[in-house]
């Protein structure tokens, strides 16, 4: 503080007046953007490969590593089959199907929900109570549930996750990494259509290939562990030709690739892991 009263004020005024004429530092945002350093991790984004498919393998490692649980994954896994989601058990799936589905009385047109059909969960609850809701006995719980249902329904997995507090991701990882656990019922029958269109587009060759690889004849009862081969009563309208259905689901099978597909089918019959 100076001895002359008001000198400090005058200095300050002079300084502001000098700054009045100095160049400004503001960045006019929409026209010019600030330079962002290459290391800046402002936004997470999923990458696509050169064929435009998502590189994310739904392995949930990022979601498990996220400290503040901000990563919330949902949808079908990379093979487009199972509804998987990660999140604190009650924050994602339940919220969606309880509020969204209930509020709009119709099913939400979401790919993630096609394979998520509600089942009777009494058995799951009994198993959980038996294991005392202890996430450390997860393997036993999963094994019992598979015995009860023949496979692991997504609804059961979610109930397990929400009542034991274990992450759905860890459940999914466990179930998919153990060979004796499977997500879908074992295939029992394959049906081939023998209508004219299908025969003309190679249904015969497919039938031969299937008989060769599955070892069971069309129309005959299969041996134990084998897959029954059936004939469709008629062509499903709108379905491609040649038409092969598994549990009523039309499969896209070409005569060229039928061998490989049949091999995978045989594996599935044995109940091998799919994820």
């Amino acid at each position: 503080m100076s001895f002359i009263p008001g000198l400090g004020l005058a200095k300050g005024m002079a300084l502001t007046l000098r700054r009045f004429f100095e160049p400004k530092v503001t960045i006019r945002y929409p026209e010019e953007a600030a330079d962002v350093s290459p290391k800046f991790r402002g936004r997470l984004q999923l990458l696509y490969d050169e064929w435009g498919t998502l590189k994310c393998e739904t392995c949930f490692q990022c979601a498990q590593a996220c400290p503040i649980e901000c990563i919330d994954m949902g949808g079908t896994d990379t093979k487009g089959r199972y509804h998987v989601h990660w999140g604190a058990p009650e924050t994602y799936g339940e919220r969606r199907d309880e509020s969204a589905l209930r509020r709009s009385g119709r099913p939400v047109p979401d790919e993630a929900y096609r394979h998520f059909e509600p089942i009777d969960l009494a058995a799951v609850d009994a198993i959980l109570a038996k294991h005392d809701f202890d996430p450390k006995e997860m393997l036993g719980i999963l094994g019992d549930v598979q015995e009860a249902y023949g496979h692991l329904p997504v609804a059961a997995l979610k109930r397990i996750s929400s009542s034991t507090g274990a992450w759905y991701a860890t459940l999914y990882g466990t179930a998919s990494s153990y060979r004796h656990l499977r997500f879908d019922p074992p295939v029992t029958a394959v049906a081939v259509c023998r209508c004219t269109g299908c025969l003309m587009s190679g249904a015969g060759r497919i039938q031969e290939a299937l008989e060769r690889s599955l070892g069971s004849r069309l129309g005959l009862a299969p041996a134990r562990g084998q897959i029954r081969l059936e004939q469709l009563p008629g062509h499903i309208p709108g379905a491609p030709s040649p038409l092969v259905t598994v549990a009523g689901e039309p499969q896209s099978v070409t005569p060229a690739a039928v061998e490989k597909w049949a091999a995978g089918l045989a594996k599935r019959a044995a109940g091998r892991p799919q994820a």
Partner: protein
Amino acid sequence: MDRALRRRLEARFGDRLTGPVRQRHDETEIRVGPGDVPDTLRTLHDDPSFRFEFLSDLCGVDTGLVMQVVYHLWSETTTDWLRVIADGLSRDDPRVPSITSLWKGAEWMEREAYDMFGITFEGNRDLRRIYMPPDYTSFPLRKDFFLADDAARSPGAGVRHQEQTHTPRNAPPGRAIRVAKEA
């Protein structure tokens, strides 16, 4: 670590210490009973051979078996942090004398310990909740705390809670809680 400090402490408080003087890195740890806390800290503060003038930290700890109140002190006579642990407070009714007469600044830290652990500091004239709302009933940092019960107790009872702890719902309190393993 400061061996001389250890010897001085043992010589001064030998009879009071409820455990051996532990030393690791630059920390010296002594344990006293809850009743001895004010005398011990006053001695450490006033005694010219100690002169622990700074109360660096005061916090409560729930070991799962007992409650503890941990004081950290600093003095220019030593290069160590001195940790004084008031050990063996009962988990049902933890009580310890307040040290606000020594360090007035400990008042809010004691309020926080009360808010989080329910430790009653006798002599603190403002022992209120400091973070949690006044109509809050449970003590969040205790090991037998889990949110389902808390939500049932809180004024927002009936509101569906989002998170769930790993404690089973039907477990009696204090069953599946973590218990500190002392080295």
